[in-house]
C-alpha cells in the first residue's frame, strides 16, 4: 500500500505517522507536497483538472518506488497522487521517504518527484479568466530526471 491514486485529499501527519510508527529505526523522514499555484505564466487560475491513465498510473508509480528502494536503504516510502478537479492551494501530490539517515531520505524523495514528473501519466489542465489550457511539460523536469541516470 505504498502507492495511492485518488480524488480525495490526504492527511500528511497521518501518513507520516502510519509510515514511522511501526519502525523505531527511522531517524529521518522527508516529505514533499505539491500544491496548486494560483498564478501561472498565463494568469491567475480558478481551477486545475488533473487527468490520468488509470491502471498505468499505479503501475508507473509502483515501478518508481521500486527503483528508489533499490537505490537507497529506505525504511518506508509513500506516494499519493490526486486526480480530478482541484483549486489553488489544494494539495496535488505527497511523497514520503523514511530512512535511518537524512541523506537517503532527501535523495530518495527528490528522485521520486523527478521520476514521477516525467514517468507517471498525469496531465494538468488549468482554467482561469484567460481561458483553459493544458500545461506544457517543463524542459527542467526532463533534465531533473536525466541527472539520476548519470549518477
Amino acid at each position: 500500500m505504498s502507492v495511492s491514486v485518488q480524488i480525495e485529499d490526504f492527511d500528511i501527519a497521518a501518513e507520516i505517522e502510519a509510515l514511522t510508527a511501526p519502525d523505531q529505526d527511522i531517524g529521518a523522514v522527508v516529505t514533499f507536497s505539491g500544491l496548486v499555484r494560483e498564478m501561472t505564466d498565463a494568469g491567475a487560475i480558478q481551477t486545475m483538472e488533473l487527468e490520468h491513465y488509470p491502471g498505468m498510473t499505479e503501475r508507473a508509480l509502483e515501478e518508481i518506488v521500486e527503483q528508489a528502494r533499490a537505490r537507497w536503504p529506505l525504511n518506508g516510502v509513500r506516494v499519493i497522487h490526486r486526480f480530478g478537479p482541484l483549486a489553488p492551494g489544494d494539495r496535488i501530490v505527497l511523497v514520503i521517504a523514511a530512512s535511518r539517515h537524512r541523506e537517503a531520505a532527501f535523495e530518495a524523495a527528490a528522485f521520486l518527484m523527478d521520476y514521477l514528473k516525467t514517468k507517471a501519466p498525469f496531465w494538468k489542465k488549468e482554467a482561469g479568466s484567460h481561458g483553459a489550457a493544458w500545461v506544457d511539460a517543463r524542459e527542467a523536469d526532463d533534465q531533473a530526471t536525466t541527472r539520476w541516470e548519470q549518477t
Partner: protein
Amino acid sequence: MQILYFSWLRERVGEASEEIETQAATPADLITELKTRGGGHAMAFDDISAIRVAVDQQMVELDHPLEGAREVAFFPPMTGG
C-alpha cells in the same frame, strides 16, 4: 486493439478510446493509419514530436513492435506532480 487518448489528444480526436482492427507493425505505422480516419485524428497527430506512446501500459518508442499488443495509448509529455 484498444486505442486510448489522453489530454489534448483526447480532445482533438474527440473520444477517449476506440476499438480498431489493425495490422500496423509499430505505433508509427498505427499513427499513419489513424490519421486517415475521420474526426480530429489528423489534427491530433499533426506534430509527432509532441506525442508519447504506451503499449500495454509501458512507455515505448514509436518504432516498438506492436505484435500481441492489446492496448495502445497516445498522449503528450506528462505534467503530473
